[in-house]
């Protein structure tokens, strides 16, 4: 069973539908026992960094993430769900993140923001998420991103104004800045790639 963390942020139903499409049953929950016991945990997120972190802490989601990391159990963050895994975010004054990945999440240097639409992602051969998806396009909606490679990880990149991290995979922790659940066939393949590792 895959658990989708419900901490009051993100379009949980669309993630659930996309997993269902690829034949994977999910449960949307904030129950720590279910989240910790699940084979995989999905951490969604939309809106502002600080608001997401506040809700994550208030609902016990942060403790769940920390416990899963300590237990080396698989997890994938999506969009702001990726961003909050970094050290901090500079959106609206600056906020601490969960800090699994070292680095800051800051505004993209581009004349037109948000970065909205389909953009291609360049992955390393070591990427499991993007296997068979080299240079495919995915759907992005964001203004902030992490811009430095994460050490000892498979880093995948996107360019909009400047280069930023589109995906990070390090051990059991994966994260994507784009929305696989809104990225048609390529997104479905990515979800399958992740789910099949569980």
């Amino acid at each position, binding site marked *: 069973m895959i658990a989708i963390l419900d901490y009051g942020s993100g379009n949980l139903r669309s993630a659930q539908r996309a997993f269902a*499409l690829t034949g994977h049953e999910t449960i949307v929950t904030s129950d720590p026992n279910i989240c910790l016991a699940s084979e995989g945990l999905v951490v969604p997120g939309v809106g*502002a960094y600080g608001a997401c972190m506040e809700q994550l802490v208030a609902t016990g989601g942060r403790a769940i993430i920390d416990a899963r990391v300590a237990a080396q159990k698989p997890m994938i963050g999506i969009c702001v769900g990726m961003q909050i895994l970094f050290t901090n975010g500079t959106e609206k004054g600056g906020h601490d993140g969960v800090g699994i990945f070292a680095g800051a999440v800051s505004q993209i240097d581009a004349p037109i923001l948000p970065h909205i639409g389909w953009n291609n992602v360049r992955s390393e051969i070591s990427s499991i998420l993007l296997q068979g998806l080299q240079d495919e396009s995915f759907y992005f909606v964001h203004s902030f991103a992490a811009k430095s490679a994460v050490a000892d990880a498979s880093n995948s990149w996107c360019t909009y104004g400047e280069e930023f991290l589109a995906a990070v995979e390090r051990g059991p922790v994966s994260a994507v800045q784009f*929305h696989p659940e809104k*990225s048609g066939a390529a997104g*479905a393949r990515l979800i399958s790639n992740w789910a099949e590792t569980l």
Partner: protein
Amino acid sequence: MTLSKRVIPCLDVAAGRVVKGVNFQNLVDAGDPVELAKIYGDAGADELTFLDISASVEDRSTTLEMVSRTAEQVFIPLTVGGGIREVADVDRLLRAGADKVGVNTAAIARPELINEIADRFGNQVLVLSVDARRGSTLSGFEVTTHGGRTGTGIDAFTWIEEASARGIGEILLNSMDADGTRAGYDTEMIRQVREITHVPLIASGGAGKLADFSAALAAGADALLAASVFHFQTFTIGEVKADLARHGYSVRL
């Protein structure tokens, strides 16, 4: 490679059905929105926009079900506009499976609505829909409501600047002069609006031939919305994208 220019079919829906008409009149049933959404999704649409033109509250709840059924089966972003008056309307649509909402008339009547939606759900969910026509306001472009039939006396550019400051994710710029004419997008208006805003700009109104699409991009649009040319199968989404690619624009094929 770079960010692709988006091609977005727009479906007018009323009481859970897609309708065709000219200027909201002589509406003809044009089928099941879920089926059409799937067809457009398979044909390479980068997003879908539903414009809810329902007349009653009952019809709007039918629209919610329609959004939900579409979101079950179509895995590209859905924007829903029409009839959004308060944060609770946005909440209902997002829960039903919409990814973005378009606001127009209610935000003109009460601009604080923009802040309220952006504060709750983030700027990225909010598409400011501007129905503009040439008029005697400061910029020469006036905001209209009710499908372009009612002038507001509000200057379109002043309104766009105010709304941008309040927090929007995109602008859907619909030319009421060009709408339904198939004489091409209003590239002059697109060019001028591009200069005053830093959010993505979706061109709407007037698409009639293939060359119109690349002309709107050359004027500064980031995305292209069209309805009748797709519904009446004047050309396919693939043909539009192939033509854009020929003009050197990045598209998702």
